[in-house]
């Protein structure tokens, strides 16, 4: 363990192949975690991957008198959502949870997001349990290092990183608006990892046990990508679990609203958020 501490602290990144401790990595989770309000009542708590933190802008909700916090993170899978819920659900006390369900991360083992979470938030029993669930050496090494030598608490993350600007409340605004086509294959239902589906159901149970209504939201992606695989079986599964709203059917957006095949730009986020607010009010989930 001492070797991991010394190696992780003093060796250059190139030499630390299996220690992926990187505070301030992609997605601004470091700032987001530090900003989590303590002992408060939110109107909406948002969960999910980058589709969450790039889609739900607190400013737009605030203009409509709605207080939110966006707890999305890079490639967040249900395993990481579970950690975040265990840590923060009670203290945040949201009136509604909106769970963004772009299921691409569900097909992964969660290592990428686990490393992000370990590097940018405290190490606790939930994150140790998550490490055992993922069972990858890189996660174990990074967790060991974080528990001994991690310095993410004292780390100050720049608000502006490359094209991204962190907006208070958990949103990350993309400044570069040039559209980039990505080659992505959306997974079939049988490609989703059972472990992730189990964790997803546990997350829903956690939220329901706290008597908080849930809305599962499939945020817009480009129509080209969406129509390449509508994931009908996945959608049927999600519909069976909670109130489910697929905005790719309800409110399809043109490519000009995206900065890549799967992420909204600011214009797209604004349009989507206004539609979401109207829908949630209409459904009685938001008063």
């Amino acid at each position: 363990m001492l070797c991991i501490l010394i190696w992780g602290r003093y060796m250059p990144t190139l030499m630390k192949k299996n220690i992926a401790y990187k505070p301030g990595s992609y997605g601004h989770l470091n700032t987001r975690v530090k900003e989590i309000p303590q002992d408060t009542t939110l109107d909406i708590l948002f969960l999910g991957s980058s589709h969450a933190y790039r889609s739900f802008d607190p400013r737009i909700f605030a203009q409509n008198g709605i207080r939110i916090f966006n707890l999305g993170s890079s490639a967040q899978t249900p395993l990481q959502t579970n950690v975040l819920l265990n840590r923060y659900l009670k203290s945040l006390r949201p009136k509604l949870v909106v769970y963004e369900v772009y299921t691409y991360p569900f097909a992964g083992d969660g290592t990428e997001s686990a490393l992000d979470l370990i590097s940018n938030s405290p190490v606790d029993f939930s994150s140790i349990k998550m490490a055992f669930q993922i069972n990858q050496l890189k996660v174990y090494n990074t967790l060991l290092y974080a528990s001994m030598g991690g310095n993410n608490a004292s780390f100050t993350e720049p608000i502006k990183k490359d094209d991204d600007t962190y907006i208070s409340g958990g949103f990350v605004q993309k400044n570069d608006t040039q559209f980039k086509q990505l080659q992505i294959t959306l997974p079939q239902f049988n490609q989703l990892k059972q472990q992730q589906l189990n964790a997803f159901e546990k997350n829903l149970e956690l939220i329901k046990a706290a008597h908080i209504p849930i809305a599962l939201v499939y945020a817009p992606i480009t129509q080209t990508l969406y129509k390449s695989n509508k994931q009908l079986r996945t959608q049927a599964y999600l519909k069976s679990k909670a109130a489910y709203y697929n905005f790719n059917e309800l409110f399809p957006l043109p490519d000009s609203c995206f900065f890549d095949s799967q992420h909204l730009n600011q214009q797209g986020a604004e349009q989507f958020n206004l539609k979401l607010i109207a829908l949630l009010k209409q459904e009685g989930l938001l008063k």
Partner: protein
Amino acid sequence: MLFNSIDFAIFLPIVFFCYWFIFNKKLRLQNLFLVIASYVFYGWWDWRFLSLLALSTLIDFFAAGFIHKQIKPNRKKLGLAISIVVNLGVLCFFKYSNFFIESLVTTFTLFGQTLQSSTLQIILPVGISFYTFQTLGYVIDVYRGKLYPATDLISFTAFVSFFPQLVAGPIERATNLLPQFYQQRSFNYPQAANGMKQILWGLFKKLVIADNCGVFADLIFDHSTGQSGSTLAIGTVFFAFQIYGDFSGYSDMAIGIGKLFGFTLMQNFAYPYFSGNPVDFWRRWHISLSTWFRDYVYIPLGGNQGSTLKNSRNIMITFLLSGFWHGASWKFIAWGGVNGIALIPWLSARKKKGEMNTASTERPISTPRSTIGVILTFLFICLGWVFFRAHSLHHAFEYFGGIFHPSLFSVPQLPRFALITLLFVLILILAEWLGQMHDFALEKLDNKQPRFIRWLVYSLLLFLIGMYMQTEETPFIYFQF
């Protein structure tokens, strides 16, 4: 299950404990337990192929018994023929059926004829090339009168299926391994400790050296078009150490595990990249296979007796078959052929000097001449590996064309971590040069060294494994490294 897997890490201590503490009272029981453990080990891959293993075992057990009982040479030959036909028939079916079908189709195509055919969906049973040769060697040794046939089926089954060497060798000789199943084994701490050391060294070679070299070998070979000659040349070096680390590492683990159970398996690699010439290389590389081909193919063909032409023919047949054993593809046959051609002048020169069966006694890199010999041999072997690693014969020739280009003298384009990997390779070379008088390099660290130093080295190796082994997580979407 692989030796470097969690499954095996759980399997081995359980088997070790049961073997030494529960089933150690009676030899037969201990052997039976080894059979069960070995069948569980093999069945972990695919339980369907246990029947093949059992079939091979039974055929050769009874064939050897039959051969031994016969007085007439023709009857003995019949027994041998049955064993050879069954063993090689099974091997050919599973390993070479599609090769023969595809080659036939290609031949007809060359003559302008289209042959309608489809290849068979055959799964190659793990380790079939190894255990088939092991049992075949046993039957041949019985036929030659070198060995009495096994009378106890359990001991023989344990010999065939012994899990440390079942799937990747060493291809054991019955004269060495089978008698060990007839003797009561008692726990020997120094042997077990030595075995643990060898396992650790094998893990280091496999997980740190081989797997990391493999990343760059794959990168270069899979994207060889447009690469500079120097990059392609470095690619051969990466592959050279990938295959050496992988194979010799696995052998070290197999031999080390054997020691844990009180068995002595044969050395399979003897620092082959320190060879001063191609003949020396083949006395150091995959020793169990090269000696198998020497004793069961080369010598029966006539070996080095007779004219130079006959000797050359015997060498070429042996190496072409050896290449074919490695894989069902013309590129492997070409690889074998190239090595055979390289050996002919050396063996002819040695025959004239009367040095046929002596391994090189010169310590490598001790004189300028020997150093040049080592370097040139290594370069030749690396070029030979191109056939081995390339996707096809055509790709191999394209690769050669890419190497022998003016860009061979340019700076290679490699990711930064490739330099770290090359540093590890240099550390390996240094360690092996220092330890070359031992069966494996880490064995040099014996009880004469202070305990603190020994455990520091072991800890460092474990740490490097933990820091640099390849992990199997899902490819990252966003993470910036």
